């Protein structure tokens, strides 16, 4: 059930009325939990069973850590095995299934139906990180485990976030689940701009640019010029698509009385790779920083083996971004994309450019932005490429421009990217210089009218749902 579907609208209306008619917190939570499981089971009923079993396992393990602190590490180890094992099985099974399938065929076992039936349950990557964050915090003693299975289950399965985040921390969401919620019009006043922008970015911007981006990345041998235009288009598409999902998720949660985290903060204005990851998919970046990057760096600092400066600077970002790439998908392009950012972060640190770079002049600032933006766009080319061979071919084996048709298509892609970027640029300027003005109200009203014009019953899914 996509947030932009009619089914979801009906589902949400029924839930909204039921939820606010009841004032008692426990009943509200119960309704929300039931709704979250219905929402999740809508795609595949057995996904909900997997979700329920994994919630129960982690709830019991966390309670075990609390009641039996001596065996803390054992419980944590079990949780890691269960969570990472399930994620690895479902996410990477299809990566290897082709070869497993062939091997089984050779010994006369036709395993096609079984293998194909193992599909990645949507949102598994997201709720696994949510649960792991909770377990690690409980294990470290920085978080008291909740006594209520209902509250924990709602924290993990909370439907606005279960498919594609934000990856909310327990410290932020659990206290809200544990407190009383009474309807106030403020929820509506805060939610509507998010909902308008969410629908606008998805239906008007992302879906429009997707057509030409898909075509360029569908060519068997695109020229360098087309790859560049396609990568620019995809940079816009993925930002609009993913930030739309986050806006809708936050708006939907707000109407139920929950304040959830922002995931984007003008990521394409970044001046350094570290700055980019502080602004892009913020909740994932924070998770990776706190549970992967810092522990690796700490372990290296405390290690008896003394590494030289270059290695101690390089290993934490490389390892973290490698895991980030792997988390995004079971494919070499994702792994390469992760490593690419690991190398970029390490390289910037080697040459002494910190994440909070503040250039002394506007020219230096523009230069730093241009360099970083080029790196970002190239990163998206790696991310979106069908495979590494395709990317290598497009980069090294094809001419930059092959024919007039290439030039025309490239120009159209560039114009579309620029035209559909403009609303986002105007929005950020309005947010900065003219907040809550008549101009900004007009912007939202025009965006709402454009949603009506661009609405299409056959809308495509959000890109990040597949991760």
């Amino acid at each position, binding site marked *: 059930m996509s947030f932009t579907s009619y089914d979801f609208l009906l589902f949400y209306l029924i839930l909204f009325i039921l939820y606010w008619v009841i004032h008692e917190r426990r009943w509200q939570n119960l309704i929300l939990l039931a709704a979250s499981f219905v929402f999740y089971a809508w795609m595949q009923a057995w996904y909900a069973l997997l979700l329920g079993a994994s919630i129960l396992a982690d709830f019991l393990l966390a309670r075990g850590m609390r009641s039996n602190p001596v065996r803390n590490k054992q419980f944590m180890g079990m949780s890691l095995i269960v969570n990472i094992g399930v994620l690895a099985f479902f996410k990477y099974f299809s990566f290897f299934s082709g070869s497993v399938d062939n091997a089984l065929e050779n010994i006369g076992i036709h395993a096609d139906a079984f293998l194909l039936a193992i599909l990645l349950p949507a949102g598994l990557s997201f709720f696994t990180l949510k649960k792991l964050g909770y377990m690690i915090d409980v294990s470290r003693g920085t978080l008291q485990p909740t006594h209520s299975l209902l509250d924990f289950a709602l924290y993990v399965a909370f439907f606005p976030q279960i498919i594609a985040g934000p990856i909310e921390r327990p410290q932020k969401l659990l206290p809200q689940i544990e407190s009383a919620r009474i309807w106030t019009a403020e929820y509506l006043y805060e939610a509507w701009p998010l909902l308008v922008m969410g629908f606008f970015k998805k239906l008007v911007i992302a879906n429009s640019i997707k057509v030409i981006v898909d075509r360029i990345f569908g060519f068997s041998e695109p020229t360098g010029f087309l790859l560049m235009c396609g990568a620019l288009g995809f940079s816009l598409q993925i930002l609009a698509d993913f930030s739309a999902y986050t806006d809708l998720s936050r708006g939907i949660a707000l109407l139920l009385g929950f304040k959830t985290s922002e995931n984007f903060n003008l990521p394409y204005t970044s001046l350094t790779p570290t700055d980019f990851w502080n602004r892009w998919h913020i909740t994932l970046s924070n998770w990776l920083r706190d549970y992967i990057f810092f522990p690796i760096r700490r372990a290296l600092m405390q290690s008896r083996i003394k590494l030289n400066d270059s290695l101690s600077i390089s290993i934490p970002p490389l390892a973290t971004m490698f895991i980030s790439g792997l988390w995004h998908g079971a494919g070499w392009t994702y792994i390469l994309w992760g490593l690419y950012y690991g190398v970029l972060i390490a390289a910037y640190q080697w040459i002494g450019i910190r994440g909070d770079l503040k250039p002394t002049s506007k020219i230096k600032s523009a230069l730093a932005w241009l360099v970083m933006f080029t790196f970002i766009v190239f990163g998206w080319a790696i991310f979106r490429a069908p495979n590494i061979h395709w990317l290598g071919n497009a980069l090294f084996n094809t001419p930059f421009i092959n024919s007039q*048709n290439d030039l025309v298509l490239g120009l159209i892609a*560039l114009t579309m990217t620029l035209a559909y970027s403009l609303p986002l640029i105007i929005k950020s300027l309005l947010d900065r210089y003219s907040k809550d003005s008549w101009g900004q109200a007009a912007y*939202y*009203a025009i965006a709402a009218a454009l949603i009506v014009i661009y609405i299409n*019953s056959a809308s495509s899914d959000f890109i990040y749902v597949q991760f």
Partner: protein
Amino acid sequence: MRFFLKFSLILSIILAVSSIMIPRNTGMEFPREAGPSLDKQMRQNYIDILVEQEPEIVLMGDSTLVNGVDADLLAQRIDKSVYSIGIPGSASALWYLILKNNIAESPYKPKYLLILFRDSMLTAPGYRVHGSYFDLVDEYAARREPELIQYSFVNLMNPLEIVAERYFPLYIARAGIRGSIDSSIRYFAPQLAGCDRNCTDYAMGDIFSGADLEPNALVDAVAAAESYLYSPDQLDFDSQLARSYLPMMIEIAAENNIQMIFVRIKVESADSRITNSPGFKDYINSLGDYLANKKVQYFDYGSDPRLTHDLFRDSIHLNERGQAVFTQLLSDDLKNMIK
């Protein structure tokens, strides 16, 4: 709250102005019937062709017919005259219109009408009727086609869309407005580079013709386009039948003494999880039972082992060798039936 009120006020003005301007400029009256408007023109080119050629057998289908059956070879093998109406991108809505407005209206009626289809196409009235397919459907539609509008459009709308279609001018005009926005963006930069609209359209047509696609992207694109046919709703034969053109097509053919023969052809585009599923098998069995009850001939090559993987050009179209093999299979069965 003040900001929300500002937004609501401006949005109300936009909607009010568009609700006055759009009906005034387009001549539309509101409330109107839900569904698209059909133009006055209707192509009846097959009436003349049937009169001229007097074929005993007419074949009708989409690109799988064009690639799958050699009409001359078929005619030669069964010793009957054959005419093929193979229209790439066509589906049950267009076949119904051609049968109703061309074949049934022709003074000459063929003895047999073979319709080649894939899996659930016969009971999927919403397949290939939107976007650019609509222009094709509209070509063979009369000014008023209540069944077409109901089955292919209104039945597929949710209640909110039906209300918007009837009362909301901005929603009705959305395709035209969006087309204008897209055109302005599309032609802007090429024009600056000296490539006018024709030049841009030619380049886009050449690029979007489907050539030079990465093999996986092509498979994915075909699978995405075909996935509609395999959704759980489309595979529910009983509920789809009453909403489809199939009963009407059988009725029109019977009224005109045309013997219908439905031919299910083999494709490799569908996920094996679906084609092996009980739901899909139930659908195929129900279709066979229904046609048998209606005493309509049905040839099912959907899982014929003689049509092997090497006979396919892509996931839905046969190659030249495949065409020869399939034409032979079809002609053998037709010969037996006609005998």
